[in-house]
């Protein structure tokens, strides 16, 4: 097992900054707008990522730091920004997302928000003020990646909004940085078990919105402020991604004594089995025959196609929870993971992947917190035949003349992948098809399937 690259300089990073993770979460809330306390690039660059991945417009407001903010701090920007944002967009929820700049200056965000609330109440009326929740989320970019940003946001929102009440019988799901299609599939599985899912940060509608004129200001859907309040009264919480959302689940456990399950992301047979068992444990619901059938179809397909996958060398990069789950799928398909990289450093990730690969008797290089330059070098050395990762792997895959199976965020050079799940048995089937068809497109003669 290789150590992470022993250099300080990062070349072609495989991780993004904390704020984008917090914005990802916020966009899953009904009528919510993230307000970035920082420079305009901090919102615009992020909007490009979302625009390109989801092919959707996204509203992310910014307090536009200029020279005066550098000198006097961000107080004026935030107070004025909150006022203007409420005046124009009337959001139900505003996530104040800090950046490296505002954290370096040492902005006292909580106090500024209080002052802004006073001003909004005075200027726009108490009834308008009462409609909006303003949640500060501290996401200094120098202390962790987008994965941590999402995690931080999950805790911040629940700390601020969740409140005890009557039991609602629902099951909280904190999805993490996964796609609308994944969330749909998770809802499907939970509903098949007769349980009502409460998805916290539900981007399945907000970032996959229909075209219907006139275009509404906010897309439909998303977790409502009321649901965020009510999630303290659910039966328990499953954070699909331990690193992105785990803190939210743990907060609900500590504060409201809700059972919490952190991961693994249900990609692959074993992980989906685990997920369903966990739902069963928390809610007492049974796994219905319809879901057993989905499992059977997946296994049937695995048997039908093993000749394409077994012993094929794969290199995988991306976010820790997605990569460790995909590594398991790759193993389940009989492929050999040779390099496995999480852009975000995590000891849990290294241990998890080491565990999975030990089970299957393979020994990949495991990189935790390394970059795509190191990844490419190792993938070449170990002669990877297929790469699994997001769109930042395109040039590498072209150079190496191997297929890139697109998984993760951001994917901007293919269409529609955000709509398709890789979670659950059906999602795993989709991922398998993607892997195998990429291999076939690349390396197999057309007459391979004999009559």
């Amino acid at each position, binding site marked *: 097992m290789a150590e992470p690259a022993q250099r*300080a*300089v*990062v*070349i*072609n*990073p495989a991780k*993004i*900054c*904390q704020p*984008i993770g917090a914005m990802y979460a916020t966009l899953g809330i009904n009528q919510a707008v993230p307000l970035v306390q920082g*420079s*305009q*690039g*901090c*919102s*615009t*660059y992020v909007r*490009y*990522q979302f*625009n390109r991945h989801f092919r959707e*417009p996204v*509203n*992310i*407001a*910014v*307090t*536009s730091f*200029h*020279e005066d903010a*550098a000198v006097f701090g961000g107080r*004026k920007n*935030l107070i*004025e920004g909150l006022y*203007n*944002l409420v*005046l*124009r*967009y*009337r959001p139900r929820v505003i996530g104040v997302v800090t*950046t*490296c*700049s505002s954290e*370096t*200056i040492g902005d006292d965000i909580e106090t500024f928000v209080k002052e802004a609330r006073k001003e909004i109440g005075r200027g726009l009326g108490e009834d308008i003020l009462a409609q909006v929740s303003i949640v500060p989320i501290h996401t*200094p*970019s*120098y*202390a962790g*990646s987008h994965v941590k940003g999402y995690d931080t946001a999950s805790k911040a929102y629940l700390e601020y909004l969740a409140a005890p009440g009557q039991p609602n019988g629902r099951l909280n799901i904190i999805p993490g940085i996964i796609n609308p299609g994944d969330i749909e599939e998770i809802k499907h599985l939970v509903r098949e078990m007769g349980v009502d899912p409460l998805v916290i940060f539900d981007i399945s509608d907000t970032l996959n919105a229909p*075209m*219907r*004129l*006139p*275009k*509404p*200001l*906010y897309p439909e859907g998303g977790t409502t402020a009321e649901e965020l309040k009510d999630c303290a009264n659910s039966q328990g919480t499953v954070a699909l991604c331990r690193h992105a959302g785990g803190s939210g689940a743990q907060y609900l456990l500590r504060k409201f004594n809700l059972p919490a399950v952190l991961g693994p992301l249900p990609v692959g047979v074993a992980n989906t089995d685990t997920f369903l068992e966990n739902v069963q444990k928390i809610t007492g619901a049974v796994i219905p025959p319809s879901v057993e059938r989905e499992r059977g179809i997946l296994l049937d397909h695995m048997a039908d196609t093993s000749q394409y996958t077994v012993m094929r060398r794969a290199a995988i990069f991306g976010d820790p929870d997605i990569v460790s789950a995909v590594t398991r799928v790759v193993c389940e398909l009989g492929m050999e993971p040779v390099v496995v990289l999480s852009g975000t450093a995590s000891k849990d990730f290294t241990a998890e992947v080491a565990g999975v690969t030990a089970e299957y008797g393979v020994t990949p290089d495991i990189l935790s917190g390394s970059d795509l330059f190191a990844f490419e070098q190792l993938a070449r050395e170990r002669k990877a035949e297929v790469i699994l990762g997001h769109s*930042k792997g*395109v*040039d590498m895959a072209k150079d190496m003349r191997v297929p890139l199976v697109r998984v993760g965020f951001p994917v901007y050079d293919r269409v529609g992948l955000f709509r398709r799940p890789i979670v659950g048995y059906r999602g795993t089937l989709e991922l398998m098809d993607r892997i195998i068809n990429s291999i076939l497109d690349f390396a197999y003669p057309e007459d391979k399937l004999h009559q």
Partner: protein
Amino acid sequence: MVLDTRPSHAGAGMHPAREAHFCRKGQATLAAGPVPREARCGLFAEPPVSPELPAHNRPTLPGMVSQRSCPYYGARWALAPIPDLIHLVHGPVGCAFYGQTVRSQEYQLFSTDLAEKEVIFGTGEKLYRCLLEAFAVRPGARGALVYVTCTPGFLGEDLEATCRRAEKATGKRVVLVECPGFCGSSQAAGHDIAAEVLLTHFIGAGLFEGVRRTAADGVGHSGESAVNLVGEFNVRGDLDVIRSLLAQAGITVVCAFNADAPAGRMATAPLADLNLVHCRRTGLALAQGMQAKFDQPYLQVSFYGPGNVTASLREIGAALGREREVEAVIAAETPAGEKFWRQARRRLEGGRALLFFGGSRLGSMVGAFQELGLEVVVAGSQFGRRDDYTWAWEQVAPGTLLVDDANEGEIEFLLERYRPHLAVGGTKERYLCLKSGVPFLVFPQEGSPYAGYRGFTNLARDIIKALAAPVWRLIR
């Protein structure tokens, strides 16, 4: 007049917002004067329009969904294509992740990936170590550009000294690009910073002190003239088209800033006879600097739309004494497209277009759309300068609305208010316009070149394709 009758808005309590500065050619409806905050962002009625050019280069109002970006973005936009330098982003890792992609192209990018302890105890040592490591990874690089982002920008350490130390250790040029996100009101500040960096450290570097250009210095050989293109980024082959037009007239391109200008070749750029400024916003400052420093004349040109191309070629011909060659190029190149352009014009005549550009494309592209028979009803830019608006103003018909720094909400309003047949802009505007039911053309383009006569054919075809998509007839 109630302009916004959408029930969904009423339900959400939305007041389409106004921050942008509007002006309408040929109409004087509102006296200029200080605009109170409530009027700037309150309930939207018909925008107060000014008979003057839009106010420009103003800071953005906090709390908006701004279409603008930051100076670091602008610096990357201008400098990313320089191949023989190491590009090192000094700051937390995010900026380097985003900055890898420029005009939909991916570039290798280094980052110091600052962590909390460095932010507290100082970032200089890590920068130094990263520079040495970067040169070890890419020993062939001629030097390094160090982009200073927000966090080190706030800390105010002496990074210049760190760079000197790294220069001593490596024998390579290490240059700071001081472009923290807060140092200007938009990416335009970054373009100027980039121009300054090139001018101070690379263009003409190594030529003897106090060199003055003379005709005899021309780098063109065997009677060719030589030019630099300034503010040309070779989006989908634009540069290749321009280069071929010029080559036919016996004009060589020495450097194209910044699509084809390795640091090594920039040293010889001052030897060209003439600088051609294509994008004014990113190029004019550089061209003016080169004029002041090397006595090198410049010409502002546009290669978008046959009218602009022909006029520009003639001006270039006159400036270089190549009138005859240039006329031959025009005569040879124009007939190929003319029939198609006429057809396209017949199809597009009377269509209303709404244009949103970054800066100078406003002036250089408006003419191209008009040549296709489209009526430009709104033309806006994120960070245009006075001369960009003047240039557009001269070309648009009376009644056209010019807008500076429209934000997402305002663009949404304008789409509803004007219901254009076509909207043109970047990726951020793209999905908003499409979701609002308006066909869209993305710019910088993603397919084939738009520059030159051939490029105009591509532009016309792309517009027709955007409008022809049957989806627009399926919407209920």
